[in-house]
């Protein structure tokens, strides 16, 4: 880990400790935009980590963005950080200029993308995209859609779109956006594919999930050392120790798979590695959240106690950009197509 990255992690941790309080998380679930938190985050430049300097970013690489997201995941930060990174990567790749205000990326998996068309020298876009992250708070919509000449990217002002509010299990905005011949500006050919965008978002969600897993694991270990029953701390009971050990192993597996995927994210093996990581992190989320709640007992089931801000995010995030099942079907098919004798070389690549 580089010194720069250690600095990023320290900065993010301090900032979220101070400004991402349980009260902020409660309000965010009610649909309140944490304006002060966003301003503070922006001031530190964290949303521009990994964005090339020539595109207005802070430089660095994917691992810097992952480092930020992991810390953000530990706190359940209710901001579109992953979505902002994606928007800036797409914009930088295509030579499009974004403002530093909150941005939502409007895209779907291949087949149902919005359509760009050119009229009278200008561009319009039409279509409907469900579950767009943070759209209601965005000041600019970055749309990925098909045109006659392939995949294009363009900007639409939020007032030119229709928005229907929706949210995920953790109360994070997942809105439906519709365009009917909406005016689009800066329309340019996209430098990435929809598959790249999809797997890249799976990678970023996995990073957030690893952060959340680390935090619920730490919180559960602490709770088990403090809570006394039958005259002993919970962690003195073998039944609880077994559970804690299984939980920690799951969190470690999640972390190592995510980091392994990160290291090959710019290579031809990226999608398979990201698939494996999203599967493994998602499986860990299922097991670790169950243990965390079980060890916390009824206390952890209350709205008052902050465990749920992270467990609900884990349940939401594991299904976003490909659940374990979806990625496993894809990966299993890839492995089968490559054949039995290619399995070992794949695992050790």
């Amino acid at each position, binding site marked *: *880990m*580089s010194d720069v990255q*250690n600095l990023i992690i320290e900065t993010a941790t301090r900032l979220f400790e101070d400004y991402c309080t349980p009260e902020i998380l409660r309000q965010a679930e009610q649909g309140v935009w944490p304006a002060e938190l966003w301003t503070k985050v922006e001031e530190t430049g964290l949303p521009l980590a990994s964005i090339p300097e020539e595109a207005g970013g802070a430089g660095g690489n994917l691992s810097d963005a992952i480092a930020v997201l992991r810390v953000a995941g530990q706190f359940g930060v209710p901001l579109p950080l992953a979505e902002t990174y994606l928007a800036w990567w797409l914009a930088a790749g295509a030579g499009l200029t974004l403002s530093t205000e909150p941005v939502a990326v409007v895209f779907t998996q291949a087949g149902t993308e919005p359509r760009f068309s050119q009229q009278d020298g200008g561009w319009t876009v039409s279509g409907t995209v469900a579950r767009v992250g943070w759209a209601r708070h965005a000041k600019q919509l970055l749309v990925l859609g098909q045109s006659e000449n392939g995949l294009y990217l363009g900007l639409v002002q939020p007032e030119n779109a229709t928005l229907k509010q929706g949210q995920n299990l953790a109360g994070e905005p997942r809105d439906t956006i519709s365009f009917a011949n909406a005016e689009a500006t800066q329309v340019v050919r996209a430098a990435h594919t929809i598959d790249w965008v999809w797997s890249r978002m799976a990678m970023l969600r996995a990073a957030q999930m690893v952060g959340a897993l680390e935090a619920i694991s730490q919180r559960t*270990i*602490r709770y*088990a*050392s*403090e809570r006394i029953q039958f005259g002993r701390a919970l*962690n003195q009971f*073998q039944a*609880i*120790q*077994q559970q*804690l*050990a*299984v939980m*920690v*192993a799951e969190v*470690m*597996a999640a*972390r*190592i*798979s995510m980091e*392994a995927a990160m290291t090959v994210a710019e290579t031809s093996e990226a999608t398979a*590695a990201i*698939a*494996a*990581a999203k*599967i*493994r992190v998602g*499986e860990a989320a299922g097991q670790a959240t169950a243990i965390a709640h079980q060890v916390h007992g009824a206390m952890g089931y209350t709205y008052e106690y902050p465990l749920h801000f992270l467990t609900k995010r884990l349940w939401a995030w594991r299904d976003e950009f490909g659940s*374990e*099942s979806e*990625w*496993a*079907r*894809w*990966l*299993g*098919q890839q*492995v*089968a*197509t490559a*054949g*039995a*004798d290619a*399995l*070992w070389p*794949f*695992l*050790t690549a």
Partner: protein
Amino acid sequence: MKLFTRESQQAQLFDITLANTALALRDEVRAFLAQEILQGSFVPQCDAWVGTFSPEFSKKLGQRGWLGMTWPHKYGGQERSLLERFLVTEELLAAGAPVGAHWVADRQTGPLLLRYGTEEQRQRFLPAIARGECYFGIGMSEPNAGSDLASIQTSARRVEGGWQLQGRKIWTSWAHRVHYMLVLCRTSPLGDNRHAGMSQLIVELASSGVSTAPIFSIDNEHHFNEVFFDDVFVPDAMVLGEIGRGWQQVIGELAFERSGPERLLSTFPLLVELLRQLGPQPDERAAEAIGRLVARLWTLRRMSLTVANLLHHGVQPEVEAALVKDLGTRFEREVAEVARTLVAATPALDAPERFNVLLAQALLTAPSYTLRGGASEILRGIIARKLEA
């Protein structure tokens, strides 16, 4: 404690990028194994690192410099890195090659001899182990000391020029064929500190007073034995390390034993055969099941490699090793359980179909995976006690 990480956060601890020399070595091993299979020197099998014994194959590995790889040249080693050893080992395991004869000597006895042995002991044993000619058995468990290893009763009393060993050991794989056993025993009576007063003795199994009795496992195979020591004389020159420090030495031995790729690859030959059976276009259910197994194994291998790298840098990753073993051995068993749900086949050791045989091998050996080298529950206890709030 922070797992899979250290305070220093040195990047090199986690950089498992493999050098070109290591990759070339891997290619060499792959080519060798392909050739061996082609020639019919062995048939890939599940759990081969425990269930096979082929001095001939061990000697072939020794000739190629693939045993004692990390040891100094003067002891017959190649001065390769632990990561390179990891690569060679996992190739052998993935191929289901017959590595059982030299396994214990190469994996744990050798490193222990290097660390605690006298110059004379190193000279005597290490080159022979590296040639694939000298094999060791493990002498830890006893009938009344399984998971609770500190309760061993085998003892040695001081006599002129050495020690007189009395007691018995159990679960020693291939004791009827290996040459030596590293026996953990009490050399002073049990006191307040139950971990004190133990020592490790190198016992030549051909010595007078040593006898073995076979123990057949549920597959009706014989690799386990009970070994009896009836006033066996062990000369001072065969004491490993310090008298009274046996417990500390054995804990180090266990770290080598727990973290390796053999804790995730015991059923890999079955997984390969499963893919062959399913063919290039499995249905959705099969594709999903395969995808999940592959994702887990892909992750486990990286965890195991990370532990190897920590060992390589002189860190003792006791907790990480326990954690990898717990996850890895559960995975090994799961391969068998998943395989039988995806292919309609009757598992049988005498079946003509390779898949059915491998499935039978996996099912019949699976109960041992989560027991040997530390039962999962014990490992989880080790992990839990090291967790900090």
